[in-house]
């Protein structure tokens, strides 16, 4: 078994550690041979393995640079089953929000205009640089962030930011017990229903929204549906499986589990749903209500921009 992080925050790797003592069950059944957060295996060691040697690779993180891409291809070659683990590998995740900018803008901000930067010589990272000792290399920074399946063929998706640990154990046991696995390309460790189906908050059939609130602008009563209170909650367009963790913690769903089955574009589906809830038939009033949604692209595509239909800003 292998676990790798590409463009990720490390939370997915930590979520694997969150299995606590179940990790012994894991290591009883599988040797973890590559896991940068915990083991010191080198890329060259992975490269030296025969093709298809690794049974399961949990790949977390999006594809941001050539190193991520190289490792995705390498691990695909060496693994029997490649799992896109977590929102970033599944749909692009939070790093995918960088698709609102291009490489030039990101470099300008990070290496020039950010408040803590002093760079009068306008130095930018170079993919290769000659020094007396030899040629140094850095990964090439891509213009676009991509989810894993835009680079290599993915067998399963295990969504979540991070995936809930219980789901990981279920999936792991299913694989090692030799039970029948679902069809390739399917989403595992999540349900086919939406968040709303599992949410215990009080809801009525018809939701009417006259005014949108951002979560800090309103005193949540702790029991009424967030949407009915005017707070945008991505529950209607998001797959269940996390155990409605955020909502139980009195925070609206942000959509990390991705779209429910057969939905190609989660944000578009959510816009569609919100459209029916706005309680006005007057064009001007509708326009005013919609103005209160401060950042539709960032809100509806928080975890899924690179995996959506318009996967980046047109620059």
């Amino acid at each position, binding site marked *: 078994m292998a676990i790798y992080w590409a463009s990720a925050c490390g939370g997915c790797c930590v979520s694997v550690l969150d299995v606590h003592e179940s990790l012994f069950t894991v290591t009883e059944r599988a040797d973890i041979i590559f896991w940068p957060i915990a083991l010191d295996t080198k890329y060259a060691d992975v490269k030296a393995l025969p093709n298809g040697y690794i049974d399961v690779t949990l790949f977390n993180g999006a594809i941001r640079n050539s190193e991520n891409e190289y490792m995705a291809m390498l691990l695909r070659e060496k693994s029997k089953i490649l799992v896109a683990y977590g929102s970033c590998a599944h749909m692009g995740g939070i790093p995918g929000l960088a698709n609102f900018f291009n490489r030039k803008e990101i470099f300008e901000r990070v290496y020039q205009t950010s408040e803590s930067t002093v760079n009068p010589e306008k130095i930018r990272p170079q993919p290769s640089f000659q020094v007396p000792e030899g040629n140094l290399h850095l990964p090439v920074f891509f213009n676009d962030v991509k989810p894993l399946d835009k680079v290599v063929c993915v067998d399963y998706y295990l969504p979540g930011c991070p995936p809930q640990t219980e789901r990981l154990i279920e999936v792991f046991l299913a694989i090692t017990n030799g039970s029948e696995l679902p069809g390739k390309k399917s989403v595992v460790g999540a349900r086919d229903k939406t968040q709303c189906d599992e949410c215990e908050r009080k809801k009525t059939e018809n939701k009417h929204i006259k005014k949108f609130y951002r979560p800090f602008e309103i005193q949540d009563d702790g029991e009424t549906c967030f949407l009915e209170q005017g707070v945008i909650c991505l529950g209607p367009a998001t797959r269940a499986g996390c155990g409605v963790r955020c909502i139980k913690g009195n925070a609206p769903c942000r959509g990390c589990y991705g779209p429910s089955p057969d939905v190609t574009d989660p944000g578009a589906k959510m816009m569609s749903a919100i459209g029916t809830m706005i309680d006005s038939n007057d064009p001007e009033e509708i326009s005013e209500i919609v103005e209160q949604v401060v950042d539709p692209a960032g809100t509806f595509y928080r975890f899924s921009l690179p995996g959506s*239909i318009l996967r980046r800003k047109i620059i």
Partner: protein
Amino acid sequence: MQFQPTIVSFLCNWCSYTGADLAGTSRMKYAHNIRIIRVMCSGRVEPTFVLRAFKEGADGVLICGCHPGDCHYHEGNYKCLRRFHLLKKYIQQMGIHPDRLRLEWISASEGKQFAELADEMTEAMIKLGPAKINEVMQFA
């Protein structure tokens, strides 16, 4: 040769499509750039349809429905109107010019208005130039 935009238009079955049909049967001439897709109601037009049209190379998207209050399904066009406002804000954030998406009301008797709208929108798209959405996507 002058740039010929592609405008995908979604027309509702009960008013706008009949309106466009009237323009046709009355032998009115209008820009051939409009590609009509008939839907049962403007409320059927999901944001996904519009985004996909842009992605597949549309330079503009036109949605037409019954006038407010006239919807065959009572309030489908209002739902469309609300989604339209949200969608317009979204496509602007994604770097698509807001004029590339339009929502207009065309009744079954407004063949002339439809023909004029088609010409007017084509003219506007020629001025804006190609959307180049697909090219940007491929480059990245």
